[in-house]
């Protein structure tokens, strides 16, 4: 049994922490709320090799796994940065998978994406779950509304198609050079298609909502030329799980930052003659953040284990990590603000920026409710698969 980071993973995490510490990204998130352009972490990501993290070595990537990417995202969450990365990692994961099966279109774009010369993003398709047995995308207008997958009509022969449809609140789509889009064919088949950002009929409209640190956009396609990829429902579902896992890691980083900030303040700030962290009322809330952080980390490790050793557990593991991580980040951010009293409620303070990040993140990519539905669906499958004996012990 080994349930700990490997030495290389520690190095990757520490290097990410060091590299991101050089960006003034927390202040940047505040400035962006006031209209300044968001500080772009892409040069850092590219220099560190994160752009090729999930691409094989022969295509110029690092050939690493989901859990390694999660370590980088955790550090991004700590520093309220990482714009572009989740969409890019998700898209390259699918393209690498398609290329490995001999898909020429995917293979052609992988090297430039791995090198970070170009940036990709993904329109995320949600697999069927207990609350909705269709494949869907997050709809514009959001909330519990879900939209069908874009449709693909035959195009100029071969794998060329024309895609029509819309999706709301898509991570990292604005600024991407390439989009991977889930489509449903006339035959009812679900596939992924590759779209260039300058393709006719493609609209990508930035739709900032509350948190400027995480760019999201409305994506619309109107007879947009695209290239069908050799990637079907299994790949789409895999990318869904990977995005859940990356968002979970990002939220874990948010919670960790809040724990550090809250503990430091509780040791320093005095009231009634002693540090406020000595009072159980404060101490117990900080321990509750720690409990959330450690539970989330263990579920992230479960994702790492599932990805490497037990792929059939990836849907459950990634949905659990996402659900727990968003709930943790919500608790950690609001508790950290409360522990700071009045100063925590000001524009100048950092904690409210983390609160904004947590508030938006929990709504994206199916949201925390969607993650909960998937956890319930998957754990009941697991319970069914176990013997009747276990069910009745």
């Amino acid at each position: 049994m080994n349930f700990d980071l490997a030495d290389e993973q520690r190095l990757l995490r520490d290097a990410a922490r060091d590299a991101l510490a050089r960006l003034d990204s927390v202040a940047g998130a505040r400035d962006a709320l006031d209209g300044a352009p968001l500080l772009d972490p892409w040069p850092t990501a590219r220099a560190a090799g994160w752009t090729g993290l999930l691409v094989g070595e022969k295509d110029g990537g690092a050939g690493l796994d989901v859990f390694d990417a999660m370590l980088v995202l955790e550090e991004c969450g700590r520093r309220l940065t990482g714009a572009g990365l989740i969409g890019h990692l998700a898209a390259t994961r699918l393209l690498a998978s398609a290329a490995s099966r001999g898909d020429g279109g995917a293979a052609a774009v992988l090297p430039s994406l791995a090198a970070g010369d170009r940036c990709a993003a993904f329109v995320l398709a949600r697999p069927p779950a207990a609350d909705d047995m269709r494949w869907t995308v997050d709809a514009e207008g959001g909330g519990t509304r879900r939209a069908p997958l874009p449709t693909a009509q035959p195009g100029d022969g071969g794998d060329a198609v024309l895609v029509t449809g819309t999706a709301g609140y898509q991570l990292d789509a604005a600024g991407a050079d390439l989009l991977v889009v889930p489509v449903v064919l006339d035959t009812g088949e679900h596939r992924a298609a590759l779209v260039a950002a300058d393709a006719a009929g493609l609209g990508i409209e930035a739709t900032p909502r509350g948190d400027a640190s995480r760019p999201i956009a409305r994506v619309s396609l109107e007879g947009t030329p695209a290239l069908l990829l050799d990637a079907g429902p299994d790949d789409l579902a895999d990318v869904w799980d990977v995005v859940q896992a990356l968002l979970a890691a990002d939220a874990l980083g948010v919670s960790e930052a809040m724990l550090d900030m809250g503990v430091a303040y509780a040791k320093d700030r005095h009231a009634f003659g002693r540090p406020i962290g000595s009072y159980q009322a404060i101490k117990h809330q900080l321990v509750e953040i720690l409990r959330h952080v450690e539970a989330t980390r263990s579920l992230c490790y479960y994702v790492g284990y599932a990805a490497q050793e037990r792929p059939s557990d990836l849907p459950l593991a990634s949905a659990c990590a996402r659900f727990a991580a968003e709930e943790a980040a919500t608790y950690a951010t609001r508790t950290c603000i409360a522990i700071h009293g009045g100063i925590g409620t000001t524009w100048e303070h950092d904690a409210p920026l983390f609160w904004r990040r947590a508030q938006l993140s929990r709504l994206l990519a199916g949201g925390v409710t969607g993650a909960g539905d998937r956890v319930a669906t998957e754990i009941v499958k697991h319970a069914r698969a176990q013997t009747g004996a276990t069910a009745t012990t």
Partner: protein
Amino acid sequence: MDLHDTPEQAAYRAEVRAWIEAHRHEAPPPTRGSHSADPEPYRRWQARLAEARLVGVTWPEEYGGAGLGPIEQLIVRSELRRAGCGGILDNIAVGIIGPTIIVRGSSEQQQRYLGPMLRGEEGWCQLFSEPAAGSDLAGVRTRARRTADGFSISGQKVWTTGAQHADFGLLLARTDPDVPKHQGLTMFLVPMRVPEVTVRPLRGMSGGASFNEVFFDDVPIGEDAVLGAVSGGWGVALTALMFERATLLGAFDEIGFSAERFAAPFAEYRELADAHLRQRLAQVTCGLLSLRYSGYRTLTALARGAVPGPEAALGKIGVIEAARQGCELIAELIGPDALEGDWGETAFNLPGLRSGGGTEEVLRNMVGERVLGLPPEPRIDKRTPFRELGRSPAGAGVPA
């Protein structure tokens, strides 16, 4: 991240599995805890397991253990469970008291007690909590007074699991009330089957007699009953509490708190039609699965030589919370029928488990101070001689 056995562990697992296959016909059915009315079959089974060195797996070989690590211990437990066999009778002895005697005891004490403990021939209990000293364990008032040839024990202990089956107890008592509370304590190994000791069962909230109160009425014991040094009892208590934390590890699934068990009624009773119940099932599932994988993280650290730390207490807080939510959820799914049988027993026990092995509040204090480094609350009793503390409901700090 992997859960693979190393080649050595795989060989050990095969050996353990073969032994269990050959002997399973001798095994009594699995039981939860040591609350069975008739412990004899379990005692005999523990003796057979001990012969095969499957008890005290982490104990050094010179004390009759297998000299292996926490992973091998988990292998033994999981193989017994896989075969549908009961485990050892006396987890408190083998998991907590024995290791404490190994670290803190004299060679005479080790010689005398460890062998019969491993074989289940002599049962043990842990005599720490008192009516007026629970979270504030260092405030115990049971007195050990000097006599010509040792000590005389008088006082009362409570919430003592397994006292009705115990031949001996690990007892924390006050030897010196004239110094501050932590400094006047001594740990003893005391006989339970003597006329001066009275054990009365306490009926727990689920209805079963799960623990006891124990009265000591001038129990004479020799100098050789001191474990560690006179006045060194607090340090020995901390050693025992450290081992107690380790016994919880990886055990939640085995004692019935597995995510799959709580999801099973959804598979049996009806589909996942209700959105509200789905969200709550997700919360319970995440709580319990996080504990499973936290357990693997801690086992990995322990197998590399780490000492069981206070963060294990987070697991205890978490399992109680998740299981409580889970029981409420199951009851709403199934209806009142859920309050009878297994689910009812679990549900009716849970609020009590919140206080067992340390209240949630005292555990949060410990984690906050020792893991997060937060300052402690001011403790007015820390430097005052124990005799001068007069704030307990019983009046004086110490019986005269």
